[in-house]
């Protein structure tokens, strides 16, 4: 079972390395969205420091939505997905492998890029650390929850917009606690509580999201 997980993970990573442009599209989207806010709001550092956690988190949320559409679409198009549905291993394990790979490809670069963008917003080193940890905890949850939406909208017309409509409301808790952790740290309230909540959400998503995703895949690929 674990071998199947590793095999899927390895396969998806190799595919991503062969097609690097997909990785960079998401990352640049994230960078551009974050960079747009100072242009729209004005370069005042005091304001920027205030909105930085929210801006980075919303941008991360949108960037992860952007990448979701491709999560199952290619496999669905070339028939690999049907083989996965027929495989003797539990589908949720395979889904977990795909989601892990998806997070490593689109989520992790975004997390690593975030402190650099935080510097542009004049966040303190302490706040940057919390931002990094909160994104590290939160983006896997975004990928996991997003996978449900991606599976539900598989092969539908206008799937990309639809998946955002379905998934964004469900991701609100992640956004609130993620951005809240950084804000709490900046205002001196202590970020631990928020990070614990994020951790709880990730664990819950890890438990339930692969099951819901595999059920949705079975519905979509029928």
């Amino acid at each position: 079972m674990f071998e199947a997980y590793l095999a899927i993970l390895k396969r998806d990573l190799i595919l991503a390395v062969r097609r690097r442009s997909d990785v960079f599209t998401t990352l640049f989207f994230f960078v551009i969205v974050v960079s747009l806010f100072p242009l729209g709001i004005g370069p005042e550092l005091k304001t920027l420091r205030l909105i930085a956690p929210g801006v980075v988190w919303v941008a991360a949320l949108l960037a992860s939505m952007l990448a979701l559409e491709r999560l199952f679409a290619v496999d669905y198009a070339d028939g690999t997905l049907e083989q996965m549905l027929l495989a003797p291993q539990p589908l949720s394990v395979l889904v977990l492998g795909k989601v892990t790979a998806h997070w490593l490809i689109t989520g992790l670069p975004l997390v690593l890029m975030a402190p650099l963008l935080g510097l542009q917003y004049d966040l303190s080193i302490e706040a940057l650390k919390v931002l990094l940890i909160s994104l590290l905890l939160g983006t896997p949850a975004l990928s996991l929850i997003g996978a449900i939406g991606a599976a539900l909208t598989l092969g539908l017309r206008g799937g990309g917009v639809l998946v955002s409509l379905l998934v964004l409301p469900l991701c609100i808790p992640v956004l609130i606690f993620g951005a809240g952790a950084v804000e709490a740290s900046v205002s001196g309230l202590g970020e631990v509580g928020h990070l614990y909540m994020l951790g709880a959400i990730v664990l819950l998503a890890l438990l339930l999201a692969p099951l819901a995703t595999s059920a949705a895949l079975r519905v979509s690929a029928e």
Partner: protein
Amino acid sequence: MNSRLINWFKFSSPASFYPLAGKMVPVFTLIAVMLIGVGLYMSFFVAPTDYKQGEGYRIIFVHVPAAWLSMFIYLVMAFWAALGLVFNTRLSGMMASSLAPTGAMFTFIALWTGAFWGKPMWGTWWVWDARLTSELILLFLYLGFIALQGAIDDSRRSDRAGALLILVGVVNIPIIHYSVKWWNTLHQGASVSVTQGSSMSSIMLWTMLIMALGFWAYAIAVALSRVRSIILERERDTTWVSELAEVRR
């Protein structure tokens, strides 16, 4: 052993549910019209003017029942969704999709009347209060469900996909509710919490209950007549539909 008086599964077939729903719709319409009529009369003429909030508080008689219904309908939809996934009945999916527009409408009414209430009472149309935000997210969940069902042509797939989405949403609703609540209280003082529960007179409470029951009957009537249309649309190729009196005409 099996001594049930009514065989409930008989009505899980669209062919036998369709006439039953047809008989229930006028009954619930009548109940709804009567209760909402009485409730509106009581809310405008019987309920006393609030000494603190003046006449404007009368919005509560529409606002609170609509908010209750908006949440209750989502739970009912989740019930039908679970039933449909477990027993694989066609009617459950139809019930869930027939309830969704009504639920979305009540959510919208709750938000809209809330804005009208908020302007004179709090001096603003909208605040990012925990309740308002959760209600707004509930509206998004309804709209997402309707959009998903609209995008799928195959009715069997749309029922099952919609059911999954509702169930995921039900798991998420408590999380959303509490996250929004904590998010709000952490950063903003309790400046906007209206505590009217204890100070409410019994006549106001009764008016609100009557309105809530009226809205409830309305929701049932509308959902049932909508499900009749859905049944006709989906079963249009079957013999029993072609033998119906209203179809033959």
